[in-house]
């Protein structure tokens, strides 16, 4: 178990990890059923479908039906895992996720790919900035965002057995590697990637690597950042949030998501409810729609870079 961050992107793209892991999970458990809405070729699962149509079902471009079928499979004793792009996995079938899955007490695992600016050239229609807010609002749900390939593999195996509605947000490309392959992840527990006393950056997904880059930039100035990978957005790890605030007195939350209803709000709730005196900033998408372009351009455009984190830290220390 080690933190291996050096700023270079992982060589294996997460799409391949997702496809191979999903097939391996299905091979290990006859009750697992993978459902996709005609984007298997984008998720690395097309071969799985051809090889094992009993456990990999292509539902066509009909997400509402797919979510309902998944809920029915759960009620019939199966372990459904659903994938499509994040916008279609949440906004497009929200009531089905809410009623047929969660309200009815069924266990459905939803994997929504290409969060926020990661959707890049697919543009604004394909760019979920509010998926975590929607899924957080569903009672008893679990919401997670993947920041690393080893994490994706580990959490996919864990989520297979998870009860209730689980939403996992993940990018199909790759981010800078953070963890060794044998790293252990506990759902609901944040991971401290580096300790520091000047300020704490609590981040998820894409923004974890940006936070590590920001920490490297500030180190030269004698500013020591604590960086926390909060891969479980709900239930939030209150303990680590409060500890981070007490240690540093300054908390920046960074997320590739609208600042309304995401990780920033979850952390702010925890801090306010605990009554911890702390300075606080959110780095995220400020109440805006998505748009098209290369990911680095979009990160600049929406303020989702290491430089934006540095700026937010400087403002409160």
């Amino acid at each position, binding site marked *: 178990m080690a933190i291996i961050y050096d700023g270079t992107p992982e060589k294996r793209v997460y799409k391949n990890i997702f496809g191979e892991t999903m097939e391996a999970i299905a091979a290990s458990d006859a009750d697992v*059923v993978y459902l996709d809405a005609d984007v298997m070729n984008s998720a690395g699962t097309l071969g799985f479908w051809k090889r094992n149509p*009993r456990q990999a*079902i292509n*539902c*066509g471009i*009909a997400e*509402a*039906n*797919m*979510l*309902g*079928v*998944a*809920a*029915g*499979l*759960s*009620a*019939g*004793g*199966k372990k*459904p895992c659903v994938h499509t792009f994040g916008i279609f996995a949440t906004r497009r079938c929200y*009531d*089905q996720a809410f*009623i*047929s899955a969660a*309200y*009815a*007490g069924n266990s459905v695992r939803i994997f929504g790919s290409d969060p926020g600016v990661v959707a890049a050239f697919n543009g604004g229609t394909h760019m979920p900035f509010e998926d975590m807010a929607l899924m957080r609002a569903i009672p008893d749900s679990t919401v997670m965002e993947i920041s690393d390939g080893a994490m994706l593999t580990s959490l996919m195996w864990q989520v297979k057995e998870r009860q209730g509605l689980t939403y996992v947000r993940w990018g199909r490309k790759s981010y800078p590697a953070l963890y060794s392959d044998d790293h252990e992840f506990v759902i609901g527990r944040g991971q401290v990637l580096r300790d520091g006393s000047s300020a704490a950056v609590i981040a998820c997904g894409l923004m974890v690597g940006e936070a590590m880059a920001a920490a490297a930039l500030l180190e030269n100035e004698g500013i020591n950042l604590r960086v926390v990978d909060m891969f479980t957005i709900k239930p939030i790890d209150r303990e680590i949030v409060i500890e981070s605030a007490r240690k540093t007195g300054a908390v920046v939350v960074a997320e590739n998501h609208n600042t309304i209803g995401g990780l920033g709000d979850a952390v702010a709730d925890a801090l306010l409810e605990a009554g911890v005196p702390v300075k606080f900033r959110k780095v995220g998408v400020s109440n805006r729609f998505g748009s098209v372009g290369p990911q680095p351009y979009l990160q600049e455009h929406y303020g989702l870079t290491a430089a934006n984190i540095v700026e937010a830290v400087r403002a409160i220390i």
Partner: protein
Amino acid sequence: MNIREIEIFAARIRLETVRQIGVRGFGHLGGALSVADTLAVLYGGLMRIDPANPGWDKRDKLVMSKGHAGPAVYSALAILGYFPMEWLATLNQPGTRLPSHCDMRLTPGIDMTTGSLGQGVSTAIGLALAQRMDGHGARTYLVVGDGECNEGQVWEGALFARQQKLDNLTMFIDNNGKQLDGTTKEVMDMGDIAAKFAAFGWNVQTIDGGDAAVILQAVNAAHAASGVPSCIVLNTVKGAKVSIIEKIELNHHIQLEGEMRDSAVRECEEALEILLNSKEGA
């Protein structure tokens, strides 16, 4: 049950449903009554179920996608002994196990939570798929309203069930011709529902949904169809077989109090009495 017993069962479902809704004084009575005969056929011996063991994993399942017909299902379940008859009077009371719309987490014998129209189609398909994977020969029955067919999800499900060749799924369309705001013709004319499902590749029959013998025969014919899901369009009357309810123009959700309630209960009691006094095989 034989046909006479099924008809008695249906009459009891109607009586208990009217009584249930009469306690609160309002409810979705019209669309509950129009499926009473079908429920009596399904729960009257056709479905492989065990009231003493509602969670039996090899059982046949029923999804009342038009979840507002919950009170009719509760009547059938109570009569079969899934829970005490006294529960029926608690419909929609604080803390009840019997809410307006079916809830699998609250009510023994309810196989799927419904109420958001269209969604039961997909969840029933999921149940039927799971049964097929298990290979025990279990079936899923699905009841959908004609108004409910306005929902796009119904048609997504229709495509998918056909693609999956889901022949252990039998769907009933309660074609009572009315939805909340008026007739289906006025609000959203579904045209020829049977032709639509046939065009989606389903095995389709259209029958009199008020005749138990005809319903039973149609379900057996549906079971014989291989490699395709089956659809049975039930021509029914909203508020069926309770004249005072049938006559109300907008009878999706009605007030049922005072003399009107007493008259409806009396009519159901008399209909049951006549059936009970009829001779075996008559």
